[in-house]
């Protein structure tokens, strides 16, 4: 009865002490944050005395993890983007077309002449003049397919080819579309991450959400539009052969060609071959530079295969123009003067210095494989965040004091024990939040305040039970013991059910709501721990020392 092994006592105090230590840095938020930032800068950019001084603001032997502040508290921008995965299908087909053409050419005797027809995006339609040769044509085209090696698509091939009368239709197979979608989203995610990293902001959150969405949260950035400017452009750079130039945007381009506007020449449109010679994917470097006239330009360099393709093309087409196309707009269309062998070149245009720098960043980070559609945009100003923090702080303190006073008045000494547990409880919540690097949001603060109110519940259950036991004539030790053991099932049932709802909230919620679920869930665990272990230990220690004949709860 009322005995707790020494090792358990040590363990309980150790847990509390660890929690307090982990929570400690949050009490000196700005100082620790500066110290952490400086430490990161030293690793990234090298040591300076100023940085060293900042690092030393916080002793290195103490834990330095902080609770992350959510966007609603720190200010920043939040974007939810949908990747337009279908964009890729068209490009895949355009890339396939020359292969199809080359494969069918030797078969002219059986399939006759063939022409590419107008078709919906993501399809190639081919008309052959000898429908009787369809079987052979299909065989040849199907020969271009690659097998897919995935778990679900074993044995499937990447393209679906069908023939109807004299028309052959080629498109990506369903399995390949799924695989392609997944690849596209992953690439986009990676590129968005690289672009944001190039700008160098603190702790951006970039996550995939669902099948084709990307969630981007960047604290400290001025607005969602600013963030969109960094990641929103696809920056798809291609070098296309020029077929013609005109002023009619609706000019018929001819199959396999497209009409696109020129950036710097209003009213001018170029007809270019849709299949590019080289694309930005083969770039290894891009730097802002100046052309021979001293106006801003971008220097670029291809990798080996890109350099070879570019070299071959320029060697074969001296004297004809080619277009440098960025996101379906012609930046410039120089005439090839000579064979360009080294794989490097310069993009000139009417750039400002800022634009050329931005373009170089975009090209370096790589092109987004597909366009992004922004479904959700949120900007929260830092002032609002600070106001929320201040209000949250005051509210938490007042709530805390009110509950502490109320408990002390209601349960006397035992109330004080519960109060110590309550303080430990909040410290533990902060400690754990810091440890797992969780994000504190405004609803999260509400979760903590709610926990402050509800955390006493377990103790109240126990104390009320002890009162009942005393009333029914039991001695102090026996009453305390019975109080704890009889209250246990109610405590566990009540908290497990609440915990279930917190888990569901975490699983289904997003952003701030999730922050609330985390603090609520953690709060339930720590309050059960403090009630059934910490206050009990305190009461037992007090009891051992005093050995009261009579207790009042």
């Amino acid at each position: 009865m009322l005995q707790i092994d020494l090792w358990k006592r040590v363990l309980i105090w150790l847990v509390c002490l660890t929690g307090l230590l982990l929570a400690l840095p949050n009490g000196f938020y700005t100082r620790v944050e500066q110290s952490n930032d400086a430490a990161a800068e030293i690793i990234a950019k090298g040591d300076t005395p100023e940085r060293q001084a900042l690092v030393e603001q916080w002793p290195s032997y103490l834990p330095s993890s902080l609770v992350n502040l959510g966007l609603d508290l720190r200010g920043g921008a939040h974007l939810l983007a949908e990747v337009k995965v279908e964009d890729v299908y068209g490009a895949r087909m355009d890339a396939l077309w020359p292969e199809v053409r080359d494969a069918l050419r030797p078969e002219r005797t059986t399939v006759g002449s063939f022409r590419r027809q107008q078709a919906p995006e993501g399809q190639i339609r081919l008309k052959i003049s000898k429908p009787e040769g369809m079987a052979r044509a299909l065989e040849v085209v199907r020969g271009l397919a690659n097998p897919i090696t995935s778990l679900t698509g074993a044995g499937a091939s990447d393209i679906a080819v069908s023939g109807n009368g004299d028309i052959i239709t080629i498109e990506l197979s369903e399995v390949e579309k799924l695989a392609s979608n997944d690849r596209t989203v992953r690439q986009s995610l990676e590129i968005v991450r690289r672009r944001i990293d190039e700008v160098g902001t603190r702790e951006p959150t970039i996550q995939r959400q669902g099948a084709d969405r990307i969630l981007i949260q960047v604290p400290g950035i001025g607005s969602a539009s600013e963030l969109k400017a960094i990641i929103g452009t696809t920056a798809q750079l291609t070098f296309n052969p020029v077929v013609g130039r005109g002023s009619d945007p609706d000019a018929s381009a001819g199959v396999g060609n497209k009409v696109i506007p020129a950036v710097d020449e209003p009213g001018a449109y170029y007809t270019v071959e849709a299949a590019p010679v080289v694309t930005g994917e083969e770039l290894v470097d891009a730097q802002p530079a100046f052309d021979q006239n001293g106006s801003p330009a971008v220097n670029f360099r291809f990798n080996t295969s890109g350099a070879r393709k570019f070299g071959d093309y320029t060697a074969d087409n001296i004297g004809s123009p080619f277009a440098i196309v960025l996101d379906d707009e012609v930046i410039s269309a120089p005439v090839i003067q000579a064979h360009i062998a080294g794989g490097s070149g310069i993009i000139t245009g009417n750039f400002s210095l800022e634009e050329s720098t931005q373009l170089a960043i975009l090209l370096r980070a790589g092109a987004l494989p597909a366009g992004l559609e922004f479904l959700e945009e949120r900007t929260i100003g830092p002032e609002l965040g600070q106001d929320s923090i201040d209000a949250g702080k005051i509210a938490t303190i007042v709530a805390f004091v009110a509950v502490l006073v109320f408990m002390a008045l209601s349960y006397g000494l035992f109330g004080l024990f519960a109060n110590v547990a309550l303080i430990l409880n909040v410290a533990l919540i902060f400690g754990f939040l810091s440890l797992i690097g969780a994000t504190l949001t405004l609803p999260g603060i509400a979760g903590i305040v709610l926990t402050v109110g509800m955390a006493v519940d377990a103790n109240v259950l126990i104390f009320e039970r002890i009162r009942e036991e005393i009333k029914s004539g039991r001695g102090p030790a026996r009453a305390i013991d019975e109080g704890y053991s009889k209250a246990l099932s109610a405590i566990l049932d009540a908290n497990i059910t609440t915990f279930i709802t917190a888990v569901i909230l975490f699983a289904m919620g997003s952003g701030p709501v999730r922050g609330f679920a985390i603090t609520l869930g953690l709060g339930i665990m720590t309050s059960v721990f403090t009630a059934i272990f910490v206050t009990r230990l305190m009461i037992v220690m007090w009891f051992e020392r005093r050995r009261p004949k009579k207790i009042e709860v």
Partner: protein
Amino acid sequence: MRLRLVPQETSFDFFSKWKIWLGISALMMVVGMVSFGLQGLNFGIDFRGGTTVRTESTQAIDVGVYRDTIAPLGLGDVSITEVFDPTFEDDQHVAMIRIQAQANGEAIPGEVIEELQQALDVVSPGIKFVSVESVGPKVSGELVQTAILAVALAIGAVLVYIWLRFEWQFALGAVAALVHDVVLTIGIFSELQIKFDLAIIAALLTIVGYSLNDTVVVFDRVRENLRRYKKKDLAEVLNLSINETLSRTVMTSVTTLLALISLYVLGGDVIRGFVFAMIWGVIVGTYSSVFVASTILLWLGVKRDWSKQANTAGNQFGNIDA
């Protein structure tokens, strides 16, 4: 001297007028549902799509002037409300501008926001947009589904848990109380037309959790007393159990309300709706665990054959020693 909110020994009869209590609850639920049916909820942009801009300026706000300034921009349905809060400074004037969802599935473009800011800057120089939130209708539709699913899942999971730990009658009673709380909360949001957004869903689930917490504590005592007093009839046992746990029920509700009220008053206007939902939830949750959950239990009756496991009375988790 101790502060006692509830006398040491109480013997209120909670069930003599159980028909009246159930009637009141049913009536309130009907009122809530009718209100919901007639005027619906004042959905925030999370659920309806659209854009909200929170502006802050040092000049006093004239909603009419704002409206006239915004009208030429052709943004469709725009509503403007001034926000008042005791935590604001004297020269801090805050307004919420809400713009309807635009035709395509996307969020509102940044240029439109800039245009809006420039227009407003003319009538209120130095106006700041402290937050701009825009949700495309495509996402908001999904958010509604997820929210409904979350609440349904929570109630379902709890039903199963209580069924496993108690008897099915207890589970039904608890769930009836939950549905009661959720309906009344949605009802009051509809009646007062308070903005209903994602955070309110979180509040709803918290209410579910809190109400259950309360119900389970009462039920736990009922289970224990059913084993102890085999001869007493159910109404008597229920009454006894509620009276025995009354002190605790009131204590916990009061501490929780103390915390929530301080948050309501001092926590700023951003989360006021959220906190309001929880305060309301704590009140109806406490009421429902006594007057709905237990009454339903009385009505359904409980199997009383506990004879075989009488010696583990009241504690299925066994003794956990600290």
